[in-house]
């Protein structure tokens, strides 16, 4: 599917992804620095996906139809944001694929995830997201 993306579009996607990777890296660095200040450095534990043997397409639907709208309105409570992170973890593998809908879910959630909210969950999202962006940056020019 990536092969069907026109060159001009790939170029613009790469530009956008590079900028985004810088933003995410900056966020990670600043959060790491603040975590060191309080003596709680190190990466958070990754979410285990073994307990969620669900269809990635259904996870994507729930994320985009059920969880994204309240997130956009700033009304995602901590329990629901934990649920969103779990579902995002379920689609990580699919988000590495040519099907850019899954990767774009991460784009959407990053864009609306509250910067002032739970720092742990934002950092967790940033770690996964940065790896995903790097992955797609390597694949897009092909």
């Amino acid at each position, binding site marked *: *599917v990536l092969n*069907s*993306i*026109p060159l*001009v*579009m790939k*170029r*613009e*996607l790469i*530009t*956008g*992804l590079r900028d*985004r990777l810088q933003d995410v890296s900056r966020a990670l660095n600043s959060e790491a620095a603040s975590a060191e200040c309080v003596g709680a450095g190190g990466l958070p534990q990754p979410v285990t996906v073994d307990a969620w043997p669900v269809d990635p*397409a259904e996870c*994507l*639907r729930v994320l*985009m*139809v059920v969880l*994204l709208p309240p997130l956009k309105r700033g009304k995602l409570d901590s329990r629901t944001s934990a649920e969103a992170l779990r579902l995002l973890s379920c689609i990580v593998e699919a988000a590495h694929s040519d*099907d*850019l*809908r899954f990767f*774009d*879910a991460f*784009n*959407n959630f990053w*864009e609306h995830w509250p910067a002032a909210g739970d720092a742990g969950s934002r950092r967790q999202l940033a770690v996964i997201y940065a790896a995903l962006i790097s992955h797609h940056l390597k694949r897009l020019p092909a």
Partner: protein
Amino acid sequence: MKVVVYCDTFRHVTRFAREFSGEANREFYYLVARRRNESMLTFTARQLVHAAYAIIVDRNIALCRLWKTGRLITCLGPLDAPESIDTVRRLAPDVGLHSSGVIYRKSLIAVSGMGILNAHIGLLPEFRGRSVFEWSYLYGRPIGVTVFFVDEGIDTGRRLVSFFPVKKFTGRVFADAKKQMFALAPALYRQALNCIQENQKCDENDVSMGKRYYVMSSLFLQAVERAFAQGPDTAANGSDDL
């Protein structure tokens, strides 16, 4: 052929009435219903604003003519309310046209003759759901409008009437191009009605051949907008139609 157009506002009515004026062999009725969870006050205010806009800005007096001839029908309840269904049943249309921004219930589809047509700004069955114009453009796939009969799902209706490729846009602003796609709906419905009256066979919307898409992120959307700004045809290289 009797056609009922399900409209969200009086302004939609005037847009369609303009396109369909002078149609000798088809009778068009326009049904405007209150949105679910919308108060009567909001509904009335919204329609008055749209009517004023249609008459003053668009200089379109079709509303008055339609009202006088009984072709403009206002339902005070939502489209799927029993009284709205009864109104449509009494009209006994051959086909319905979608311009109302709701997902239709089975009860309304059942009383709409052959069904309700929707103009979807993407190629079906490949692109279902939201932001399909953006996703089609990103993937370099054919750009255009698919007219199909709806069911209760999201772009899952089985009968596809036709895909109308769109070859040219005015300007290089992607949001404007999207508006131009939506504005094509009345003209494409007319063409679809011609296909139906000529007994053209419907293609099957095999949902297993496509995917449901969701609202596109700002990151991807901005990439699409920048690519489009460099010339609408530069990115859309996936089809011979373009």
